[in-house]
């Protein structure tokens, strides 16, 4: 197991280096972070030269990449091209916001999806099962951004019709977020719509996984054996079936969680949330390689770590799997 993990980690580092070089080249070749300054009819030539020099923009790309590597390792991902602003504090901030969004939505989704999945499996072909299936299909076929827009429209109109503020449609907190309970409520009012938006697809997918793995387990030999032993049905379901059925779901959730930490780009854009995804898109539009790269490194590490967690969890929970 340990050698497996080490091998995986080493391999991941290689991938990370390769990916970072490719993306650095992409961003550097095709965008110029100084373009908006250069478009200013009266821009100062000295300033443009200073920044170019300071940021090595006149060097060939492999050299610039090495400068970046040095900055990333010794200087906390370095600073932005224009303005020399440290990148890490901004990245930490948006990461915190994305964590709030993703943890809340994934937790809620998980609870609901497990409940739906188990219930559907136990009552296969019931009206509930059909309803859940329909929901899943529609949920997976609905574009996330469209769902977000529809929720916005709905709640804007509830506000207009009834003059009741239930949820906000933009930003992370109100003008006066306050403290304590007031702050919490304010945050919930702001995050509720994005959480709902994000939850739908997760529930749709998780509940199907849960349903099918539950079905598989219920019909497996050892549950039959447990039943035959005369154990009470509840005990059979909870002790034997439910736990085993959770195994495949664990990996799926871990993977999804890992990639969501890179930011729910679409949701954050629609609801103007100051999170990882929006940060990335903004920096991409600005064409500045340093923040884009910092984001990439953090996100890629998350994906790799959660991939590993998923693998280990799977191996740990399912004795049939052995890694050499």
């Amino acid at each position, binding site marked *: 197991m340990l050698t497996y993990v080490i091998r995986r980690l080493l391999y991941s580092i290689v991938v990370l280096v390769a990916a970072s070089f490719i993306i650095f080249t992409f961003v550097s070749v095709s965008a110029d972070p100084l373009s908006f300054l250069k478009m200013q009819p009266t821009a100062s030539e000295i300033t443009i030269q200073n920044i170019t020099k300071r940021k090595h923009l006149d060097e060939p790309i492999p050299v610039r990449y090495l400068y970046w590597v040095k900055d990333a390792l010794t200087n906390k991902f370095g600073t932005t091209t224009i303005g020399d602003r440290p990148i890490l504090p901004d990245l930490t901030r948006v990461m915190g916001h994305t964590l709030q969004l993703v943890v809340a939505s994934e937790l809620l989704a998980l609870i609901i999806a497990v409940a739906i999945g188990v219930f559907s499996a136990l009552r296969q072909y019931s009206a509930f099962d059909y309803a859940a299936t329909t929901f899943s299909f529609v949920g997976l076929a609905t574009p996330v951004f469209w769902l977000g827009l529809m929720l916005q429209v709905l709640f804007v109109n509830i506000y207009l019709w009834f003059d009741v503020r239930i*949820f906000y449609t933009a930003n992370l907190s109100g003008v006066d977020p306050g403290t304590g309970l007031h702050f919490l409520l304010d945050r919930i009012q702001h995050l509720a719509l994005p959480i709902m938006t994000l939850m739908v697809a997760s529930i749709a997918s998780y509940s199907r996984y849960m349903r099918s793995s539950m079905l598989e387990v219920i019909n497996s030999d050892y549950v039959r054996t447990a039943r035959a032993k005369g154990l009470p049905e509840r005990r059979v379901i909870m002790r034997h079936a439910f736990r085993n059925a959770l195994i495949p779901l664990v990996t799926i959730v871990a993977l999804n969680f890992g990639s969501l930490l890179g930011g729910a780009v679409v949701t954050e854009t629609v609801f103007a949330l100051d999170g990882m995804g929006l940060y990335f898109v903004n920096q991409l539009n600005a064409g500045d390689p340093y923040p884009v790269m910092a984001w990439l490194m953090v996100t890629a590490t998350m994906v790799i770590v959660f991939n590993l967690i998923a693998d280990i969890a799977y191996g740990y929970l399912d004795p049939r799997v052995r890694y050499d």
Partner: protein
Amino acid sequence: MRKRWLLLLTGTLALVGSLIVGPAATAKSEAPAAGTVIIGHDQEPTTLNFYISEGNLYATSLAMSPVLVGGMIYNDKAKLIPVLFDGEPKILKAEPLTVTFSYKANAKWSDGRQITGNDFLATYRTIMNPNWDITSREGWEDIASVKVKGKTVTVTWKKGKAYAAWDALVASSPVPAHKVAGQNFNDLWRDSIDIASGPFKFLSRQKGTQLVLARNDAYTAGPKAKLDRIVFRYIPSTPSIFQALQSGEIQVTEPQPQLQIVDIRKNPRFKVQSGPGYFWEHMDIQFGPKGHPALKQKYIRQALIQGINRAQVREALYVRPGLVGSVKELPVLQSHIFKPFEQYYQPNWGIWKFSQRNVIATLKKGGCTGGPDVPTANNDKIWTCPGVGKLSFRFTTTSGNQLRALTFEIAQKQLRSVGIELVPRFGPAGTVFGQVLPSGDWDIFMFTWVGGPTSSATSFSLYGCGGDQNYMNYCNKKASDLLKKAQFTPDPNERAKLLNQAEKIMAQDVMSIPMYVRPGFLINATSVKGPILNPTQQGSTWNAETWTVSA
């Protein structure tokens, strides 16, 4: 069994439900503290220092101009009005240009110190310090001396370098000498600023979400602000801004010219102002070696401009959909130098009327073959002209802009019917401006120049031979000399005469096709009184001290 699951399910649903409904029941309907106006904006300033390149954003001047106010500011008529100055600055001598001005006796910094000539001197020195990433040093570079006597300043330019827009230059917001001394100006005011010269001062900032200004009670140079606070909310996508506007989360916004505005116009809860600005949309033509050889022929360029119905474009884009009230509000732009609402505007390009017959006649006269004899819809015969090949041009512009896409469609269709082909090459702003435009590897490029009341004076940079921003590589010696002369002519009448002379020559050359002036918009909830659209980069907060808000 079934009951347990049902219980669990209803339990979860109840939990989620209470999470959803709970806050609604308990949180009060958001009544922002009395005297707070919330402005929504799609871009967040990174630094609060608008002198350096990082602060070179409209968002920065929008938020900071009520804090670091200028000696004079542009009002809604694009006229400079004194704020910290005790009157208009005066020209003492024309050659070398020498001007004088004084700060008001009661002009004070928010920490109680007087605003004096030394602050202007500090501003000059800061801007000229090569270590700082100052966005623009234009005009400042040619200053010969700055003399200070208390609150009065005398500025002299180098001989023959009289800066045309000198009044806007001296009116720049002074930086506090006692705050910038010994500081790294690039790092100064990055996240907060503890000084103010205007009616508001910085209160707090929640990055990624909002920036809050509060009334500066120490402000004595003009009337005190009526509002307690101005809150800038940063919402990066325009549709979300409109959602937030409708649901009362923001009250004032200055949107891009987007079609969404039509909807708001019909809504009695909002007031929409629109008017021409200094942004002008145009199609540049490439004269350099990487451009299409046909475009180096004058008769072909003249055919091109006559083949595009510019009046129809702005009508289809702005007037008919209801973005602007009438055709009058948005005249066809007939000048690259002055805007239709400016005093010295002359319709120099009016000589080119839309005429498809003329296009065909012109091309035939030039010896081109293979095109249609009469304008035909769905024409697929494209002209080939002697020595320069087929009239098929690459058309570059930014992607993701509905209005530009439609402009292209209309122009493409119209030119096609007279035998000229346009091939779209759209790209993201960063790429087309950063890489494509300066490379000269394009034929026709449609974009907007961001101008201001003083930009006519610097037209040389755009159209002069070897001008810094002359990406077209256009060069007409005669016009170029006139433009160069105008740049150093401080007298506005004299300057306008030179500029209009130059443009008459350029209009014959058709080096670029002016399309229209992009209108600016300002929307406010009717509960807010006072916002007035300002056509310059001064920003809609130019008169924020007069705003009031009712609950």
